[in-house]
């Protein structure tokens, strides 16, 4: 147990908490709002475009400052995705994700933060999402962990 609480674990907990605060304040944990944003051909609510805008601006401006360092503070080295290929797997996966996102208005981050509300909607979505991830892993096509994780 001693090694469980190494610095990297505490910093990840803090980053997750801040990420969750951002998702909640921004409105991403309200499925009806997300669907309103995706309803381009109906009663379109553009406000959530500012979430992606704010996040990309904040990250794009601060990321280069971090990458000037030789190494991160609480880990031995930076480990960032290197994949660049645009293939059927990328397009197929993104399409399936878009289908699910459009059906219920929840993407993975808000799907996890929403568990805290105890709403049945989130409590049904989360285990289904985990099952979908495990099913993909069972196809045997998953990349080794870490490589390209998240991007």
């Amino acid at each position, binding site marked *: 147990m001693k090694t469980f609480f190494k610095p990297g674990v505490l910093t990840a907990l803090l980053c997750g908490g801040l990420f969750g605060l951002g998702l909640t304040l921004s409105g991403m944990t309200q499925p009806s709002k997300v669907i309103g944003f995706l309803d381009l051909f109906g009663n379109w609510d553009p406000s959530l475009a500012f979430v992606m805008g704010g996040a990309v601006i904040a990250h794009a401006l601060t990321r280069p400052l971090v990458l000037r360092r030789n190494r991160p503070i609480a880990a031995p080295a930076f480990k960032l995705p290197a994949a660049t290929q645009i293939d059927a797997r990328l397009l197929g996966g993104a399409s399936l*994700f878009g289908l699910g996102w459009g059906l219920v208005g929840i993407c993975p981050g808000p799907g996890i933060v929403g568990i805290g509300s105890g709403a049945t909607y989130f409590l049904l979505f989360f285990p289904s999402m985990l099952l979908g991830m495990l099913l993909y892993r069972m196809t045997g096509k998953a990349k080794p962990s870490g490589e390209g994780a998240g991007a």
Partner: protein
Amino acid sequence: MTEYWLPLAGGGLIGLAATMLMLFNGRLAGISGITEGAMQLSNDDSRWQLAFIAGLVLAGLGLFPVMPEAFVVGVNRDIWVICLAGLVVGFGTRMGSGCTSGHGVCGLSRFSKRSLVATLTFMAVAILTVAVTHHALGGAQ
């Protein structure tokens, strides 16, 4: 204007949280990848990944009593639709190696063409899905 500055400020916090994860842990804040990694308990990375997921859940637990309006679902979906959506979100984000955070926020911030294509694809399919379910099929809500 609250309507716009809260999403902008919330988005800013998301971007900063992603930068902090890179500064401290040297990793990209892609939620689907972190979630899948956290489930592989034998993996050394699963500890920080589990901690990050715990941070997300704790944010929800802590904020729900303070601002319950931020968690209003506001739409009705059959149980099977919610479960099916969860399945394809889980499967699709791993097949495509990322979701709104990994490809959207982090990928676009580093000008990755691959992430731009992924983001445009899932946005287009999600918009099409809402158009079909809400309008062509006479409204799912």
